[in-house]
């Protein structure tokens, strides 16, 4: 489809590249623009005025601003999985093939059925929904709320996974500068010349700020020339970095700044391997906020009509983009600066219908400009705008003195003065202070290391911006310890800026304060009437300032109107709390690389790739992938595979990778004394070459972790932790060592990754080991008794550690070798064990065997159980102090009716058990008063040929043999179970000792 001609484009001037035309589509219609356009400027150049619909009333809206403060011109950009709702047309860079659609309208922007809401406007006032929709109660979720939800929202998010990449990076510098207008550039020059490391962030795609639209003369040069020269100088400084398309959005503690770089949003999609956006964490010693100021609207009836535009935005469209928002414009201003738009419009050959100036006096220069150019200057205010979705037609003007006038124009530029951007400086709860001379809030109480300069600090003249920026940059460099010379300061004249504050013009019709949220001046009056006078109440009651523009154009006007109706001053009324981010930031950028499979790191065991080759099924255990079971061809489900594995171990031999256990070297002359303090039982008397099971409590007396710890030498213990707590136990032990017991001579090192460790279990364990261990090693019960530990040589050369410990209840050893031999060890175990039918097993089989053996694990070590609850109370030494000893003696921890670990078996042997079922005394109706515990762990025991489990049951150990009821309403199951000894298998322990 041929693009329409750019009817509203000037034939020369501006910063667009007329040699690079770009075709784009808006609401299905094809248009063309140029490289250097934003979507908004391209729409302006094509004469498009109606761009969106408002939130509540679905009123037609156009383009109000030319920046990230835009409340109205929001579109859905791109399509499919890349659809981006609520994208500001004013910041979206044009690219070839851009597709955008208006939003919050049905069926079309031009004919929006929901604009019927305007008929209900008399009822849809601020907070109306708090007063109704209450009857009948059920109707809220069924009818009212779904309707409200459908009507609310703005654009539609994509409903498929975001296909683009994001990443995050760190940057460090002496001085970070927000904004590359005259103040920011001057700051960068001063700091950079002084030798500082500087990062200059500019949210626009070209540096220059207001210089790009407003021009001026600096150091005797036209602004564009000075800009080019300055950028060249900055580029020549090695440690100055200019980041365009990058918004500094937040400030965090210790001089950390958040910035978002839109790396490839100016392209249809990012090039291969490249990210869409990058989140920067910038660490800076100093920050200069040179983010400029935002022009503020004046609130009057019909001020939301398409074609009403901020005066400075109109200058941007004409001056920077060579696009004309209107043919015949009027200006409504209360200050000197607004007049620049008239000059720009005249310069571009546009008609000026009138200037409506709220001030009593205007300058002779402007008066003569008016008479020379032939337009009237009306002293007064625009009281209403007549127009519609096609745009502004007629303005009604209330003249000073009471009479009225009408002005015909197709565009209205509005200037209510300027508000410094006080966001960044206020994010640490600094409250901006009011300055009467400019009738605006300026930064105060900025976070440590941050200063505002230029317009962001209320200095609006070009010369003042340069001066403040330069001085702030030089000072920041000095503060950061850089002593080079800042050189000479760029100079320019200061323009006059006189202003008569004007916030709201009374008139008939809706006068919008927050255009996106459809908050009107009368809504603010209503809020005041109902007692929502505090600015935070006002904001919350009316939703003023809570839209995607965060109230950039509406907040100050809103509180000024509140101040007026409440009879207070503006500073008394105060501002709401400013909250980051300065501009909305894609959630994907905050996640960066950490999404989908890369959400968290993955830890792999030494035998992982071998297990994968065997077809193992893996389970996530914390960050680990562990082999859960090893299915074999023909096995129909996990239960069959696990049953086979268990039987193979119990009748022959199997092995399992247990490298995930935390492993800590505890060294030093006081290692034994140290362990005595962290474990409830004693380790100082453990013989070298022996292992012992240990239990740790938290200081509050509940069980923390368990594991087997061996003494490898007089001054060297090897401690193991559970997989889940490995890192936390290391931290806890370091706390004990460094903070609680610094007098002990003990050193700790994690060796978790140094050792590949395997459990080898089953009656044929020794047979297998004899094949692989040096024949000189004595593995007999006498030569290597239960709980013995020793370094041995393996056939073929390497050393290994052997631990005669058993989790399965079988004759078992754990063997560990340096981790890079781990895979060789598995392969060799398979070779050596082949004659004995060696079977690799996974965590399921490990779990089955530990339940059969009545060992507690994660579900029982829940953080709320005591040693006695677990049946391990006798391990608590009474002869020494240890972490948790005293609190473990509190009355509730030693109460007789505690829930303690007990075994359970279904009375119906065919019945399957499930963890999470509750235990109720037999014959009682389940209720809160007879809920006596729950099933913690279950398995199908191939050994007993039935399901068995462990449970925490009130007084459980006294009730062995009692039949109780397992109640599982979630899964609709109820059945009887018998409480029994938790050690189902080989209770005497003969097998593991044999």
């Amino acid at each position, binding site marked *: 489809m041929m693009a329409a001609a750019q009817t509203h484009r000037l034939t020369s001037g501006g910063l667009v590249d007329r040699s690079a035309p770009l075709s784009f589509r808006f609401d299905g219609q094809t248009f063309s623009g140029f490289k250097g356009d934003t979507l908004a400027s391209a729409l302006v150049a094509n004469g498009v005025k109606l761009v969106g619909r408002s939130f509540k009333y679905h009123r037609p809206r156009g383009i109000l601003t030319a920046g990230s403060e835009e409340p109205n011109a929001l579109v859905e950009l791109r399509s499919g999985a890349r659809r981006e709702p609520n994208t500001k047309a004013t910041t979206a860079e044009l690219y070839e093939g851009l597709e955008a659609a208006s939003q919050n309208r049905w069926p079309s922007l031009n004919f929006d059925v929901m604009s019927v809401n305007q008929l209900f406007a008399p009822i849809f006032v601020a907070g109306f929904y708090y007063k109704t929709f209450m009857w009948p109660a059920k109707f809220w979720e069924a009818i009212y709320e779904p309707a409200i939800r459908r009507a609310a929202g703005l654009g539609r998010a994509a409903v498929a996974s975001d296909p683009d990449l994001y990443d995050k990076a*760190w940057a460090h510098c002496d001085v970070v500068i927000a904004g590359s207008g005259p103040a920011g550039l001057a700051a960068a020059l001063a700091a950079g010349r002084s030798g500082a490391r500087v990062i200059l962030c500019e949210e626009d795609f070209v540096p220059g700020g207001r210089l790009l639209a407003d021009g001026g003369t600096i150091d005797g040069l036209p602004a564009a020339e000075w800009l080019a020269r300055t950028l060249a100088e900055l580029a020549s400084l090695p440690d100055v970095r200019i980041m365009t398309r990058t918004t500094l959005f937040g400030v*965090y*503690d*210790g*001089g*950390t700044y958040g910035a978002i770089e839109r790396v490839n949003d100016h392209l249809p999609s990012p090039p291969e391997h490249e990210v869409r956006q990058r989140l920067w*964490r910038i*660490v800076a010693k100093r920050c200069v906020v040179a983010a400029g100021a935002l022009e503020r609207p004046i609130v009057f009836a019909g001020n939301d009509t398409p074609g009403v535009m901020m005066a400075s935005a109109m200058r941007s469209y004409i001056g920077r983009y060579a696009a004309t928002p209107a043919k015949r414009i009027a200006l409504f201003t209360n200050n000197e600066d607004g007049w620049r738009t008239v000059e720009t419009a005249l310069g571009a050959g546009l008609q000026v219908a009138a200037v409506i100036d709220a001030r009593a006096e205007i300058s002779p220069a402007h008066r003569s400009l008016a008479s020379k150019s032939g337009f009237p200057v009306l002293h007064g205010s625009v009281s209403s705008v007549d127009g519609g979705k096609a745009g502004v037609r007629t303005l009604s003007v209330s003249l000073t003195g009471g009479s009225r006038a009408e002005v015909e124009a197709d565009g209205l530029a509005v200037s209510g003065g300027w508000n410094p951007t006080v966001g960044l400086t206020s994010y*640490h709860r600094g409250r901006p202070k009011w300055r009467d001379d400019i009738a605006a809030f300026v930064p105060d109480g900025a976070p*440590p290391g941050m200063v505002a300069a230029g317009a962001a600090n209320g200095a609006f003249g070009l010369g003042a911006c340069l001066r403040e920026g330069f001085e702030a940059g030089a000072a920041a460099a000095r503060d950061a310890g850089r002593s080079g010379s800042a050189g000479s300061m760029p100079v320019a004249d200061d323009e006059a800026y006189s202003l008569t504050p004007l916030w709201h013009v009374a008139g008939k019709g809706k006068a919008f304060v927050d255009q996106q949220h459809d908050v009107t001046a009368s809504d603010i009056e209503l809020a005041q009437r109902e007692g929502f006078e505090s600015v935070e109440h006002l904001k919350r009651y009316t939703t003023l300032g809570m839209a995607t523009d965060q109230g950039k154009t509406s907040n100050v006007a809103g509180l000024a109107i509140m101040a007026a109706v409440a009879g207070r001053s503006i500073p008394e009324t105060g501002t709401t709390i400013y909250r980051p981010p300065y501009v909305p930031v894609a959630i994907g950028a905050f996640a960066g690389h950490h999404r989908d499979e890369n959400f968290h790191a993955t830890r792999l065991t030494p035998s992982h790739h071998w297990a994968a080759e065997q077809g193992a099924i893996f389970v996530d255990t914390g960050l680990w992938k562990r082999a859960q079971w090893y299915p074999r061809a023909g096995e129909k489900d996990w239960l069959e595979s696990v049953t086979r594995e268990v039987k193979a171990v119990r009748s022959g031999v199997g092995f399992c990778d247990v490298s995930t256990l935390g492993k800590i070297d505890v060294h030093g002359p006081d290692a034994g004394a140290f362990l005595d303090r962290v474990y409830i039982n004693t380790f100082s008397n453990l013989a070298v070459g022996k292992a012992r099971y240990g239990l740790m409590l938290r*200081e*509050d007396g509940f069980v923390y972790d368990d594991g087997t710890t061996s003494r490898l030498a007089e001054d060297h213990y090897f401690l193991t932790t559970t997989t889940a707590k490995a*890192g936390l136990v290391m*931290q806890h032990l*370091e*706390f004990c*060592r*460094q*903070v*609680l*017991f*610094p007098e*002990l001579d003990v050193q700790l090192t994690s060796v978790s990754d140094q050792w590949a460790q395997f459990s080898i279990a089953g009656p044929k364990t020794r047979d297998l080991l004899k094949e692989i261990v040096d024949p000189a090693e004595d593995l007999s019960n006498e030569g290597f008794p239960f709980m013995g530990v020793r370094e041995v040589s393996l056939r073929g050369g390497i050393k290994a550690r052997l631990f005669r410990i058993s989790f399965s209840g079988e004759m078992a050893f754990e063997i560990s070798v340096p981790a890079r031999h781990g895979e060789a060890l598995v392969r060799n175990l398979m070779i050596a064990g082949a004659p004995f039918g060696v079977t690799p097993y996974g965590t399921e089989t490990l779990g089955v065997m530990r339940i059969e053996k009545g060992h507690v694990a994660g579900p029982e070590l829940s953080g709320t159980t005591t040693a006695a609850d677990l049946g391990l109370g006798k391990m608590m030494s009474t002869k020494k*102090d240890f972490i948790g000893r*005293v*609190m473990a*003696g*509190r009355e509730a921890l030693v109460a007789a009716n505690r829930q303690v670990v007990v075994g359970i078996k279904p009375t119906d042997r065919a019945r399957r058990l499930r963890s999470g079922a509750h235990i109720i005394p037999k014959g009682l109706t389940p209720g809160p008063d007879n809920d006596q515990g729950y099933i913690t762990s279950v398995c199908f025991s191939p050994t007993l040929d039935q399901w068995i489990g462990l449970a925490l049951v009130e007084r459980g150990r006294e009730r062995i043999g009692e039949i109780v009821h397992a109640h599982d309403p979630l899964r609709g199951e109820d059945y009887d179970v018998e409480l029994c000894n938790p050690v189902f298998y080989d209770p005497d322990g003969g097998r593991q000792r044999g």
Partner: protein
Amino acid sequence: MRITCPFCGERELGEFTYLGDAKPVRPAADAGEDAVYDYVYLRDNIAGVMSENWYHGGGCRAWLKVTRNTLTHEISAVEPAAGAGAAKVGA
């Protein structure tokens, strides 16, 4: 937030783990239940400058005593825990 580890230099918050108020001292073995209850459970919960235990687990594994203002997050001092770098004792 950034913490200047006395061993590693200034580092990002993400490298550290917080434990809490460093003022409570673990009571002696014979201090009794009330003293331990106080140590384990009761807190001054200072709104202002507070001495805290932080662990540089993502770095050198030293426990640190950090003096920090809980109203502003400003850090005014960082020193090693008694047993961090304790090998220097008597050296």
